[in-house]
């Protein structure tokens, strides 16, 4: 199973720590987590399921492009991090 972790800024609405998910793609894996934590979805993607502009996803240390990320295949022991881009002041 893949392990999915979220930025600490989402700690109030995201699962605590790494969540183990068995799913063929990243999009399917996140859908499973969103089903368990419905509020979380709107923080990560907009209503068109587009990744929010300042959210970034890493899989095993590789940053994914903002388009096509949902189709990225997941494998056992993959480490996924859903993070926020640093911005603002």
């Amino acid at each position, binding site marked *: 199973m893949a392990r999915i972790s979220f930025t600490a800024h989402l700690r109030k609405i995201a699962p605590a720590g790494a969540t183990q998910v068995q799913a063929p793609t990243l999009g399917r894996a996140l859908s499973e987590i969103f089903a368990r934590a419905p509020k979380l979805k*709107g923080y990560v993607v907009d*209503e068109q399921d587009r990744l929010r502009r300042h959210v970034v996803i890493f899989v095993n240390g590789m940053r994914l492009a903002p388009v096509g990320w949902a189709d990225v295949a997941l494998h056992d022991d993959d480490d996924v991090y859903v993070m926020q*881009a640093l911005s603002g002041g």
Partner: protein
Amino acid sequence: MSLRLAIGSRKGLLLYTAEGDDWRYDGVSFRATPVTMMLRDPRDGCLYVALEHGHFGPKLHRSDDDGATWREIATPAFAKSDEADAPAVKQIWALEAAGADQPGVIWAGTMPAAMFRSHDKGESWQLNDAFWALPERTQWFGGGNDAAVIHSVSIHPENSAKVALAISCGGVWQTADGGASWQNTSKGLWAAYMPPEKREDPNVQDPHRLVRCTADPDRLYVQHHNAVFGSADGGQQWQTLSEAFGFAVAAHPQDPLTAWFVPAEKDEFRLPRDEDFCITKTDDGGKTFRRITKGLPPKPAFDLVLRHALDVDRTGRRLAFGSTTGNLWISSDAGEGWKLLSGHLPPVYCVRMLE
């Protein structure tokens, strides 16, 4: 309940409570999160706050206990579509409660320019399809934002089916049938920033803020990008009252001839003219404007007051406004004199008297 003052800032929602002519600071909610709009529904006392998380998009929260606790409610959103350029709500910039004839109904204006209506205190939202389908939409454009935005929604105090709204940039629009049909009511507005042949085009007008006199609902004021306009006939015809740039305007709730403005220097500057800050006030319906500086800072002052950052209470006696440089001023004599309440706030986006 006591009169309270809400400050929506870049770093959270600050609340104050009136103590005589002064205000007591009660604390900050949504610490460090930008607050783009605030509403107290006078029908049931519920508070609504619109957040713009930046990273995580716009969100709405409601408090049923006067701000002691908050709960995230539904965010206005477009229907899911497979089109590549399908719209998504980027910001909630207007929140208004309907009247006693429509309990629970709240309207939200957004960027991109769309109207959403909730019939259940924000637990769910419906896009107003008639407004979204307007063919004129293609002529609207963003004024300082990525897309055209609805920033002002004014519901007729005696008939909730009559709603006026203002778009930057897309003019003033109104419905008389609860949103089933909409008409552009921008006759008399003019745009100095357009080619001559487009100057009076109703769909390119940039009203920065639209407000209404509660006691005389046909009396409207608009602070536009290049002028101040007034209407005495519900917006069917607008008159140019001055050629001042600015964002904020507040209408006296009982005296239709009185309104307050915060002028600035257009439009590549967006700061007080000659760094000399003032409020202007008319008490003759815009025939004349008085420049008020009592209690306001001497030169140099770079304070800019954004469109939602000025408000007046129901009596027309107490006012408050905040600036992008984090200053917050109050008045208890109808804006004739001002007092600095704080000079150390985050940039102020929204000021609301909670009554």
